[in-house]
């Protein structure tokens, strides 16, 4: 299998060479061999010693080709595929990743204080579409691109959760 870690440039080979014992594996990454000793493992958490270094991993979610986890406190993702070299994939984790999409979502939970750009308003990227209140502060939700506000999903005074759809901008 081939792997690419977020923010690194190279695509590297990785495989299990041998199961040494119940909890120990010999693996190969790039051209180096490592011994992995599993201390604890369930579907959410794994603690292991890799060549005498302890690591703790919490799995956030994993799909066929991408795995998101927190390794020793650092949140990161790994893409994997047997033919990763041939496949074009988007580099996850960039702050601009939503810029092309039409759906504007709330990035925080909060109460809708005001709708600043109503149905049909033309907005530029960065304009405030609505204002939320959370933890006693007012936070603006801004348009992710230029366009027209359509299908507003919120009402003043209502609460929204993180990732709730605010509106479409088309």
């Amino acid at each position, binding site marked *: 299998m081939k792997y690419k870690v977020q923010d*690194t440039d190279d695509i*590297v080979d990785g495989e299990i060479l041998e199961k040494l014992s119940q909890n120990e594996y010999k693996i190969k990454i790039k051209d180096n061999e490592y011994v992995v000793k599993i201390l604890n493992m369930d579907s959410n958490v*794994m603690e*292991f010693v890799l060549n005498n270094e302890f*690591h703790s991993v919490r799995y956030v979610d994993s799909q066929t080709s991408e795995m998101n986890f927190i*390794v020793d406190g650092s949140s990161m993702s*790994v893409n994997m595929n047997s033919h990763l070299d041939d496949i074009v994939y988007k580099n996850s984790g960039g702050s601009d990743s939503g810029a092309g999409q039409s759906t504007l979502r709330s990035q925080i939970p909060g109460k809708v204080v005001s709708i600043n750009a109503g149905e049909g308003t033309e907005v530029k990227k960065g304009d405030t579409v609505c204002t939320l209140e959370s933890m006693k502060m007012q936070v603006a939700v801004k348009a992710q691109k230029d366009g027209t506000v359509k299908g507003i999903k919120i009402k003043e005074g209502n609460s929204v959760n993180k990732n709730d759809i605010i509106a479409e901008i088309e």
Partner: protein
Amino acid sequence: MIEKVLIANRGEIALRVMKTCKALGIKTVAVYSDEDVNSLHVKTADESYYIGEAAPAKSYLNQEKILDVMLSSGTDAVHPGYGFLSENDDFARLCEKNKINFIGPSADSMNLCGDKMRCKAAMLDANVPTVPGSPGLVKDADEAEKIANDIGYPVLLKSVYGGGGRGIRLVTNDKELQEGFETVTSESIAAVGKSAIIVEKFLEKTRHIEYQMCRDKHGNTVHLFERECSIQRRNQKLIEQTPSPVVDDAKREEIGELVVKAAKAVDYTNLGTAEFLRADSGEFYFIEINARLQVEHPISEMVSGLDFVKLQLDIANGETLPFKQSDLKMNGYAIECRINAEDTFLDFAPSTGPVPYVTIPSGPSVRCDTYLYPGCTVSPFYDSLMAKLCTWGKTFDESRLRMLSALDDFDIQGVETSIPLYKTILNSEEYKTGNLSTDFLKRFEMIEKLEKDLIQDRKDKQIPAIASAIMHSEFYKSKVQSQNSRNQNWKNKMDSV
């Protein structure tokens, strides 16, 4: 003598106050909202009373309800913590009227401190220098605009009822001023139900340096040294330290004398804080008094060896200060990091929800005041401060290195925190050399530095990350296999029936 204290607050400050009360054998009474049924302060107090819905106005700001609890529980004193009712002179007066010892200044003194304009006037009378600005409240945005043009942009718009970075906006031109005026007004109304605005000259590259005031009911007044709180975002403090890198013994004494004057000028009793702006030129300007115990009080406790909550209780009991200014010596260096539940990359937006697991740092000269425990929840209804992490050192660098180590040990699962940003800051040359100012984050592009640090971090973890991915796949493969074989067994069994 105070024998039973109601703590009209929640979170880490309620717990902090209870620790001292418990050690002194004073009974504690907690109050809690629907949102706090499972909070530690409810479990830690001797008695706990439910006071209403999650929204502060329905519970922690509900004066009548809290008074009811005090009267029915036989409480003889109230500690307001910070935020909520702590600087509400109506509440202080309500307590005075009901013969409940309010642990803080008198209602009159609080009212004077809270009225930023009268307070400023009192300081000018006492020869304590203040920042140039509007001579009083401005009646509307247009008057504010006129004054701003007189003293010159940039200016600050401040609600006199604001505090802790809320109800305050920096504006650099007329358009921003008009918009900001509205925001400040509505934030102030949302927080305390009223608004009144002043305009103040904004000084660039200033430091925020504050002094701990301490005055007993007999007029004995001392200061308990300074704290530098220049590292801020949106005018809210993030990291504090004492001593300040720009305050030497002579300066400490010079400004300390002003602080004693300031406390007397407003007839302040109990502990409070006199906040100053220090211009890049070295001048100190008084800005305001915080008429309460502050979040950052532990660092002053660490260098003075005093328990500030005990001191507050003693003063409230009418005792005379057991020391003179000359008895007080600073010992070592202390730093506080405010561990907030927020996403640095989303403009510090709050991050709330359940915290399934947490590891709280400890060790030599490490102190962590927190409400977190494994399985607790960070509520969106209250402020984002989850913990005050403080370290002490014989030298500044010792306290800094201990802080870095403690930040590294602090594992909070489930919410985003300000911990990664603090690591970047504490590792920066600018912080190490004490090159501080209230625009520190922007001036030295700390968010961008953080981003680079995180990328480097991911690069460093390439091998363990790939190993994790390999082993995770293996784990699932073996799980599926063992399920298949179990199904197989099942089938075999079924066949044999």
